[in-house]
């Protein structure tokens, strides 16, 4: 029987409530990022670039746009005759069925999918993070160490360590303890939510976990502690590139602004590590004589007649004359009228901002303004400064 060395399972069912109305109608992995992409483009492109050609995408919350976006995976070269991308929603069974009750339960319910490929290892990914990572390096490390599981970790500033799941390790990189958001962290190695398991080991633990009545069926809360408890070999793999959790409106805005820094941590133009995405197929962007564009990322199909300063503009956006966009993220197909002022804001897809509107607060530490639900129209008389 043919088999795959490593199959990836991408957890994409999360709602992302802290992204507020950005995820009202779409799952968090489908949220826009970086002028062109959706969050899920990063893990999917990482898979393709790492030579992992079989990916199961576990969906649950608002899957319409996500399913449509993934399609048969051709945007990421994941349309394969054996393997490729498979969307795996919860389903009914002869003896019932229901929603995925946790991340571990989602994988448990798709054991048959994994068994089709009879993989040696399973890579668990989440659709919440922006990063470029060669999973193959991690897999090599996992195999060389003969680990049962390998968890990718990132050194975070000590001051922020208590916001993360922290791995305490010994000198050989073996994980001795897992602390979820510790008050007094003993290490600054934070879990990135990227795991590689030996499939036979994980399978056993998933089945055991399923029997436990009090389990929340979660990788971080149940599976990892159970493995540690049984003294299984868990290793930490240190990743040292750019990694950002974009789970909140502020962090999503920050991650976009990071792209505009002098030396951005994330290079989107690296030919050897392309970030693939579905192409919107729009004509070249037009920058008019009346426009001023400084420190900005702008995508196809845009028409800029006003001023864009330190902002990320997605495809198909129109900015009329006299308008000023500063420190903002403008998602696809937004129409911005004349003499509009937008500061420190995220404007969601398809919004219409009418002439003379004022959006956001320009003072440096003010909160990021989010406008609003998809397709919303902001009338000129309505100025919003959300504190």
């Amino acid at each position, binding site marked *: 029987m043919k088999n795959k060395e490593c199959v990836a399972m991408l957890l994409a069912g999360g709602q992302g409530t802290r992204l507020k109305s950005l995820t009202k109608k779409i799952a968090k992995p489908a949220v826009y990022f*970086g002028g*062109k992409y959706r969050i899920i483009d990063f893990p999917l492109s990482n898979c393709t670039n790492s030579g992992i050609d079989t990916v199961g995408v576990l969906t649950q919350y608002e899957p319409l746009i996500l399913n449509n976006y993934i399609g048969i995976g051709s945007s990421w070269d994941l349309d394969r005759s054996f393997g490729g991308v498979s969307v795996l929603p919860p389903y009914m069974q002869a003896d019932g069925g229901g929603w995925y009750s946790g991340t571990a339960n989602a994988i448990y319910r798709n054991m048959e999918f994994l068994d089709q490929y009879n993989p040696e290892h399973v890579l668990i990914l989440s659709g919440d993070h922006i990063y470029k990572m060669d999973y193959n390096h991690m897999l090599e490390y996992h195999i060389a160490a003969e680990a049962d599981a390998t968890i990718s970790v990132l050194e975070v500033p000590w001051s922020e360590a208590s916001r993360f799941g922290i791995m305490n390790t010994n000198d050989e990189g073996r994980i001795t303890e897992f602390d979820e958001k510790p008050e007094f962290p003993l290490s600054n190695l934070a879990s990135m939510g990227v795991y590689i398991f030996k499939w036979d080991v994980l399978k056993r633990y998933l089945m055991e976990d399923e029997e436990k009545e009090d389990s929340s069926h979660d990788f971080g809360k149940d599976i990892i502690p159970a493995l540690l408890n049984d003294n299984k070999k868990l290793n930490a793999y240190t990743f040292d590139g750019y990694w950002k959790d974009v789970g909140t409106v502020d962090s999503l805005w920050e991650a976009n602004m990071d792209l505009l820094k002098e030396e951005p941590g994330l290079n989107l133009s690296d030919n050897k590590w392309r970030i*693939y*995405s579905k*192409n919107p197929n729009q004509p*070249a962007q037009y920058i008019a*004589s009346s426009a001023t*564009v400084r420190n900005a990322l702008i995508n196809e199909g845009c028409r800029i007649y006003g001023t864009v300063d330190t902002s990320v503009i997605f495809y198909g956006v129109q900015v009329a004359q006299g308008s000023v966009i500063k420190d903002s993220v403008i998602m696809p197909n937004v129409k911005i009228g004349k003499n509009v002022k937008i500061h420190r804001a995220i404007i969601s897809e398809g919004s219409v901002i009418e002439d003379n509107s004022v959006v956001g607060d320009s003072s440096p530490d003010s909160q990021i303004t989010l406008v609003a639900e998809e397709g919303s129209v902001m009338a000129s008389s309505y100025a919003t400064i959300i504190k």
Partner: protein
Amino acid sequence: MDLIAGIINLDHEQDLLEELTYFRCGAAVPFAGRYRMIDFTISNMTNSRIESVAVFARRKYRSLMDHMEQGKSWDLDRQRGGLFILPPDWNDPTDLSRGDLQHFHNNIDFIRRTLADYIVVSGSQNICSIDYRDVLESHKESGADVTVVYKKVEELQPEHNLAHKLTIDDSGQVMAIHNDQQSKNVYMDMYIIERDYLNYLVENCIAHGCSHLFLDGIKGRLPDIHINAYEHEGSHALINSVESYYRNSRKLLNESEHDELFNEESPVFTKVKNEAPSHYAFSSNINNTLVANGCTLEGHVEDSILFRGVKVGKGAVIKNSIIMQRCEIEENAVLENVILDKDCSISSGRTLIGAPEKPFVVAKRKTM
């Protein structure tokens, strides 16, 4: 709904764009920041629900094949029909055909096998947005043998000298096809014809030793056959020289000209490149310019078109120029009235200035 198939006949298109067509055929010349000339013809066909397209390529088609792949960008990767790129490779010892009839003869299976009753035959030099279903409707209404598409141009330009012109009567019937330099009815090198009639014309032309299907088989049959004229009313550009390429490219900086060619109902498709959005630095100053994705801009650009992945260094000044894919303009270089083909680099401090009516063209991969 009637099925239509498409043939893009590049056989007799001459490569007149100097440096731009040294290494590629005219159909593969980059246009409008992110397209190739042929994208407009193929997109018109697929937007008209044509699902089977043959490309008769004769010369310098490497770049064309690289661009079109299996036709995926135009949804022409089909189980049935789809895209057929047909370069000249034929060894039939009994073959008597000459000229573009060689293509029609050796690829007659495409015409015989298609499920379509009608075939649109088009070149690639006439850039426009047209729905061939409207042409078919006019064709059927007129009861003609062939319907040709033309543009009534407002002002004759030098490029129109090379085009055929039509004399049309009040009922829209073509009375004559000629090269009258004063006529403003420019034939757009597109016609629609019934499949069986095309098949007959091909056989008949070959039997009579003809070498040009349109000139010998269609124009040469006047007045014995009924040729209907369909007037294309939208924007139109005929590109068959560097001068017409330059002028018509820059016409797209005008919003209404641009919108007539690029409209939401009939999008123009091209090969996907997966470039990041373009980055505009603090020092950039961009005015009245079309910019494709993947550019890094630090200098001054005005009244120009930048293709994908162009880099413009600090202090560089670009005016009235067309800069193709992946060119690098280093610091303080000055370009005016220049067309740079792909992968050129201009080292810092260099100045290249062409004439407004005759741009300076730099061939692919040149370093200056």
